[in-house]
């Protein structure tokens, strides 16, 4: 790798994705459509390899900063490349690549027309670029800009198909997400007024010295962030937009929104809370207790709502509400295990939920049936799809050897370290509820056999490759989690400002 590329890799990842996003419509005009799709997959995979390279470097040599345009902090925008960024970059790449690959099979047919499909590619790449930006930025206003790019891109991606239900869902999503942005920006304003800085590290340094002079103002700012990012990442009870948006969108959209988009906001929240404000201050304020409570509420309520849904994609969407609760619970626990658990769950849920949405999409596409009760015997028709759906379900439930168990274990340890037995109970009950809303799908699809037995009619092989790739990752992370777990632990340690791990 040439030196110029290597030295500027952090910013290049985002810039490359952004610029390729905008050439997509042009590219589809001058080359064959398949080429544009291939190019999009290629760019995301490239970002993934960049992320892995950076992550490896961070794991081996520690974190570093990058001054955009050569303007040093606090004047310029500083990118802060730490384990958090590395971890999330890798997560984005690992999940977005197969989703794009899956989408490429029949994108034009799915969204209606060639030009719409081209714009879908643009939006998809924009979203991925904004998430990468969120992963690496160390500047609070930059976070706002990236959050807005991600929000607008994800709103538009919901209504990719242009049917009225998804447009209505998009509008609802846009309104609530904008309120969320308002709160976030208000919080940023407060932090700026309190510290005079936009750089997260500088904010942190200033606050550590002065926060006792204005605890109320800081507390208000943190509440604004909680509400703002809470709306955007669908933290119960601020989740109302999510089920509509994620269930009416086309499956690749649902997959990337549920698995990655909402996690970007959580990463932003983590950065502001732990890098910008700092663990010591957070623990002094009641904010962690509130996050713990909200997380637990989300786990239970989301799962109960999911149970009540018969429509498969809606059930999966509510499942996301429940799973986001795990991540917030870990953040609320705030110790090394809790945060490691949150990071692992960000990865594990991203892989698993993407897998489930893609498999559900394939099932719905092949059979035209959207309700679980109508899906009797689909397993005989699409054995591989149902197989990967089963892997996803078991991971979501948190069975050992699947990725979900790794995060669940860390969260359980975190809850015990905090002495929070209620959280232990909720975590355990959460997996049971996950079993309750996912296993019936498998039961109906695999063990209720209609007569005559349906003939095999498997999903197209490109989509199968994407799903099997995700399923394999779920198993790899579940069985050999050392590398990622180490990175997650390092990310948690970075947030807690532990010197070395």
């Amino acid at each position, binding site marked *: 790798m040439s030196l110029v590329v290597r030295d500027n890799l952090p910013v290049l990842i985002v810039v490359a994705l952004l610029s390729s996003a905008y050439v997509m419509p042009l590219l589809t005009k001058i080359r064959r459509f398949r080429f544009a799709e291939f190019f999009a997959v290629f760019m995301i995979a490239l970002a993934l390899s960049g992320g892995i390279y950076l992550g490896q470097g961070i794991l081996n040599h520690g974190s570093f900063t990058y001054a955009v345009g050569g303007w040093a902090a606090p004047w310029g925008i500083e990118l802060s490349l730490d384990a958090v960024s590395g971890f999330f970059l890798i997560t984005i790449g690992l999940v977005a690549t197969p989703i794009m690959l899956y989408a490429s099979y029949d994108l034009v047919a799915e969204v209606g027309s060639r030009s719409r499909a081209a714009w879908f590619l643009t939006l998809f790449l924009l979203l991925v670029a904004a998430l990468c930006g969120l992963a690496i930025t160390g500047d609070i206003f930059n976070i706002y800009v990236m959050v807005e790019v991600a929000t*607008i891109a994800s709103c538009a991606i919901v*209504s990719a198909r242009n049917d009225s*239900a998804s*447009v209505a869902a*998009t*509008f609802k999503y846009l309104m609530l997400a904008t309120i969320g942005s308002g709160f976030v920006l208000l919080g940023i*304003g407060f932090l*700026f007024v309190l510290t005079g800085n936009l750089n997260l590290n500088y904010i942190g340094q200033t606050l550590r010295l002065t926060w006792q002079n204005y605890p109320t103002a800081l507390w208000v700012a943190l509440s604004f962030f909680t509400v703002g990012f809470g709306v955007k990442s669908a933290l119960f009870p601020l989740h109302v937009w999510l089920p509509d948006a994620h269930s009416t969108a086309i499956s690749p959209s649902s997959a990337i929104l549920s698995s990655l988009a909402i996690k970007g906001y959580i990463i932003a929240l983590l950065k502001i809370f732990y890098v910008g404000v700092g663990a010591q201050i957070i623990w002094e304020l009641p904010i962690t207790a509130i996050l713990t409570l909200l997380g637990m509420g989300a786990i239970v309520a989301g799962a109960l709502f999911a149970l009540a849904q018969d429509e498969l994609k809606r059930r999966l969407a509510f499942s996301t509400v429940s799973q986001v609760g795990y991540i917030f619970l870990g953040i609320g626990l705030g110790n090394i295990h809790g945060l490691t658990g949150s990071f692992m769950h960000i990865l594990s849920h991203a892989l698993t939920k993407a897998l489930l949405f893609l498999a559900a999409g394939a099932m719905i596409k092949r059979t035209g049936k959207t309700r679980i009760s109508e899906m009797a015997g689909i397993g005989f028709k699409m054995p591989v799809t149902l197989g990967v759906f089963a892997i996803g379900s078991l991971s979501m439930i948190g069975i050992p050897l699947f990725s979900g168990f790794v995060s669940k274990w860390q969260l359980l340890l975190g809850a015990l370290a905090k002495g929070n037995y209620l959280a232990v109970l909720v975590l355990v009950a959460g997996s049971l509820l996950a079993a309750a809303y996912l296993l019936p799908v498998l039961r109906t699809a695999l063990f209720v056999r209609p007569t005559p037995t349906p003939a095999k009619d498997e999903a197209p092989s490109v989509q199968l490759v994407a799903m099997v790739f995700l399923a394999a990752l779920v198993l790899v992370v579940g069985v050999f989690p050392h590398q990622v777990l180490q990175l997650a632990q390092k990310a948690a340690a970075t947030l807690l400002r532990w010197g070395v791990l």
Partner: protein
Amino acid sequence: MGEFGSRIVQNYPYVFALALFAIGVYTILTHSNLFKKVIGINIMEGSIYVLFIAAGNVRGGVAPVLDLANSDLVYVHPLPQALMLTGIVVSVSVTALSLALIMKLYRSYGTVDAREIARLTRLGNEVGADVTSGS
């Protein structure tokens, strides 16, 4: 007037901004007319501009255009203004996107009332067909 009251008066731009913010959010959440929601968004965003600009204000300061001849001039903080330029760009894009969505919604549902649209969507779900197709 007590200490609390005087603090309120001293910080009146912030109080004003927060009040405006609340009005904006209230408008978005309670009005069922989609256009009013968009207006609410703009009120809300506007309140944040007030907050930032007020934060950067210096009493008696002038616009931050460097005047080398007059070295004892006091300038207002330029950074919040620059930030709010970005903020304005963002809110214009959000407004544009929501207006575009409203047009689509109006074309398919024939109304700009959120409750009516929700009712029609639910109806469509129950019937299992897109009631608005053909529009």
